[in-house]
């Protein structure tokens, strides 16, 4: 097991190295001249050149890459081109907010989705099953800005929940909680159908297994058979998917964060792109990739830990 974890960590490092290179190349290929964005259209060639030297853009690409990577690893993520603020506290602060939103979404969404999936599976082919499937699909089919605005209409205007989720930069969880509800609910809708359908498929698959018959023929109550025997095995694939989607929730909620004006990583990314703020964009991208990779690793480790066939060898 330790060997397995070590190997996975080595792969993780390699993945990050490769993506950092990829991110660097892509940002270099982006059209537009940063200095022009910073200094404005009217500035002369001399000033542009000075700006280029200032930003180190006159160096050959590999030197710039290595400098950037080295600085990044040492914790010096540089300053934003557009606001001249230090990037690291900006990104980590937003990352904290994103983690808060992602965590809350999981907390609300996953139990609901799993429960719906189990209920649907146990009522396979009946009205309840079809109802859940259709409802879940309908919800996932709608774009987030539609469900988001819909929720604002209903919940924010009628129940008085804040429709604008812009929180203080350093807000704690409980301070932020009211502002989290609407965006989390919207994100849940995106997850819901996927996780519920996966759970349903998993439960149906396991219900066909011979060990379920063994458990029933012991004379165990139906509840015990489902909760103790079936779910333990049926949820394994679901758990993996949930862990991976956590990575997506951290940096992929661009639309939702914009609809609700929530200060997360996604919105910061939009900001960085519109301002041609390459160092900021690179930092956000790398953090996002790290989030994905860690979520993936967590998914695999969790799967191995929960599955004795992997955890305990022959």
């Amino acid at each position, binding site marked *: 097991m330790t*060997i397995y974890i*070590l*190997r996975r960590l080595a792969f993780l490092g390699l993945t990050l190295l490769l993506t950092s290179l990829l991110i660097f190349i892509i940002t270099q290929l982006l059209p537009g001249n940063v200095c022009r964005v910073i200094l404005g259209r009217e500035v002369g060639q001399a000033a542009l050149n000075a700006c280029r030297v200032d930003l180190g853009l006159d160096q050959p690409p590999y030197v710039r890459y290595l400098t950037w990577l080295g600085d990044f690893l040492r914790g010096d993520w540089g300053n934003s081109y557009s606001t001249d603020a230090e990037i690291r506290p900006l990104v980590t602060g937003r990352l904290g907010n994103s983690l808060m939103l992602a965590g809350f979404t999981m907390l609300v969404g996953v139990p609901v989705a799993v429960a719906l999936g189990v209920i649907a599976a146990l009522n396979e082919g009946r009205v309840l099953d079809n109802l859940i499937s259709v409802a879940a699909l309908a919800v996932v089919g709608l774009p987030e800005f539609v469900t988001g605005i819909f929720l604002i209409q209903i919940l924010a205007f009628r129940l008085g929940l804040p429709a604008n989720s812009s929180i203080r930069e350093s807000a704690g969880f409980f301070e932020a909680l009211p502002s989290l509800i609407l965006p989390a609910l919207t994100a849940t809708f995106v997850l819901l159908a996927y996780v519920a359908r996966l759970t349903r498929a998993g439960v149906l698959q396991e219900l066909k*297994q*011979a*060990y379920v*018959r*063994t*458990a*029933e*023929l*012991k*004379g*165990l*109550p139906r509840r015990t058979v489902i909760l*103790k*025997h079936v779910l*333990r*095995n049926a949820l394994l694939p679901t758990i993996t998917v949930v862990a991976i989607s956590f990575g997506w929730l951290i940096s992929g909620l661009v639309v939702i964060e914009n609809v609700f004006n929530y200060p997360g990583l996604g919105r910061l990314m939009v900001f960085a792109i519109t301002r041609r703020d390459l160092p900021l964009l690179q930092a956000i991208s790398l953090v996002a990739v790290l989030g994905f990779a860690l979520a993936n690793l967590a998914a695999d480790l969790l799967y191995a830990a*929960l*599955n*004795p*066939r992997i955890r*305990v060898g*022959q």
Partner: protein
Amino acid sequence: MAAQKPLLEIKDLTVSYRVGDRTLDALQEVNLSIRPGQAVGLVGESGSGKSTLALAVMRYLPANALTRKGSIEFAGREMLALSQDELRGLWRRELAFVPQNPATALNPSMRAGEQLAEALRLYGSTPEEARALSIDLLKQVRIADAPRVARDYPHQLSGGMQQRVMIALALSGRPKLLVLDEPTTALDVTTEAVILDLLREAAAQQNTSMLYVTHNLGVVAKLSDRVAVLYAGELAEDGPTQDLFRQPLHPYTRGLLDSVPRLGQRKDVKPLQGIEGALPALGAPIDACVYAPRCPLAIEICWQKRPALDAPTAQRAVRCHRWPEILAGEVSANREPTIRLKTAQRTAEPVLKVNNLEVDYPLPRSINEFLSRAPRRAVQAVRTVSLVVNSGQTLGIVGESGSGKTSLARALVGLAQPHAGQIELLGLRLPVRLNQRSRELLSHVQMVFQNPEEALNPYLTVGESLARPLIRLSGQSAAEARQRVPGLLAAVRLPADYAGRYPGQLSGGEKQRAAIARAFASQPDLLLADEPVSALDVSVQAAILNLLAELQLEQQNALLLIAHDIAVVGYLADQIAVMYLGQFMQFSPAETIFDPPYHPYTEALLSAVPPPDPFVQQEQIRLEGELPSAVDPPTGCPFHTRCPRFLGDICVNELPPWRETKDGKRIFCHIPLEELERTQEPVLLFGAKPAGEL
């Protein structure tokens, strides 16, 4: 005894399955009763309704099953009237089930002990009591290291160990009736023998009744007091085991008995007779005898009227119009076989020579092993095997799972890479890699696989599958090849119009015939058959074995037959090699394998096979312990860890010599032949009236 009230009484049970908008009868008016402490064997081919009956008794039929008629009375209660809660109570205390495949019947993510303790807690034990009791139960099914097994997850246990856990679970509630659905079919014979002993003992101790579903007539002969034969959802015959084997009254029972090779039965002396045709499709109308289309004794009335279930004696029941004539000996379904099969000529020339062949599968190395530069470890599937097969000769290789017999076959056809040794075909060295073998060479070595379902391309018609080796390997034109297809089909007795059918439209036996026709199409010098009949029903097995022998006689190919069933190998082979853990333990001419001296492993193997004959007395030699790992095979003699005749240090430290008897038997053992011969009895002692002679 006769006055004792039955524990289970099934009357006129009719069960149907709803498939689409049709209702198909799987059981038709079945009657069966079991007395307390009695073991009833339920036999029949796949599709006969055995499993449906077993699950109906448990009242655990699939949701689309419909009990249309009849009653199941168990311990004085009508099962069909019980509520779900009452049923659960019954399952806890009185009625237990042991399934076919223990590997899937245990929850993979729960420890074995907990799966037992969970049931015990239902009976009112506290968690501590339940834990202690579950270890006791595991000891009862003779698991030596019960505390460790209790802590293990199912995948850490061998198949035999898993099935012991299932039996412990079934016995945990001290049930009145055990329903067993092919509980040993997935196990090796030596393991099967231990499990059967265990069941017999446990049932006797607790006076438990058993309903034992199996296709294996040997197991029935050994274990059951009474036998019920199902055919197409109907009870064909039912009676005490000895009566039924001595004088079967239904032609189907006779057919089943004649389909299985006995230990020592040989193709040239007493050819097998299979049952022609196949089981009728589910839901066929029953206005006639269901067996008439396959019955050698069918007369006009059989096609016109469904026979009633008659009772020739108080103990027996049979559903056949002609049982009085059969009982009186006026007619018999046992017919003189029409085929004549011969053994190989002694002067034949060698086709295949294998010298010191070794096959292993390297294991991935861990980081520690990699850093410490430890030698790469491997599963040593085949270790120094040498053999010769002559043209027209059949070499049978018998061994249990893990013996390396399939790896050997795969190396010969080029599907696995041997890492040492040579293979010679007709005196020429055969390249080990498949892509180094020319097309012509490929056409010289062909193979029949175990599972015909997977051996034929489902998207090609049978005719296309047969023409392929002719075009690709023998270089014939498409037109020439097409012309030969009808002849190939005729040789395996398939109708010519089968050329246009797809494998999905064929039954299992027909598919295997097509696969055999394909293998023989290029007239190979060497034919490998890896378990060619083990996936087939017994009634079909006989015909396939005879077909192999006939085609071989015609083409004079060298045949390498691999099987776990020593009776099957003994029937077809001229020479038999017994394989254990990658090595040959014994070579014998087929005639002498059933007589001492044997290798101690052969002895154990022969005594483990239940002969399909309740009159045969058998020595009881049981192998202790588990098959050693092929990664670290034992030093010295590979069998020494389990050998009942273990001598001492010499077996552990030194490789045994090959000792040869006067009649050409070779034995790989430290024990001198004279001593083996002096101390070994013939494993099988035939009784006064073997069933085969009726």
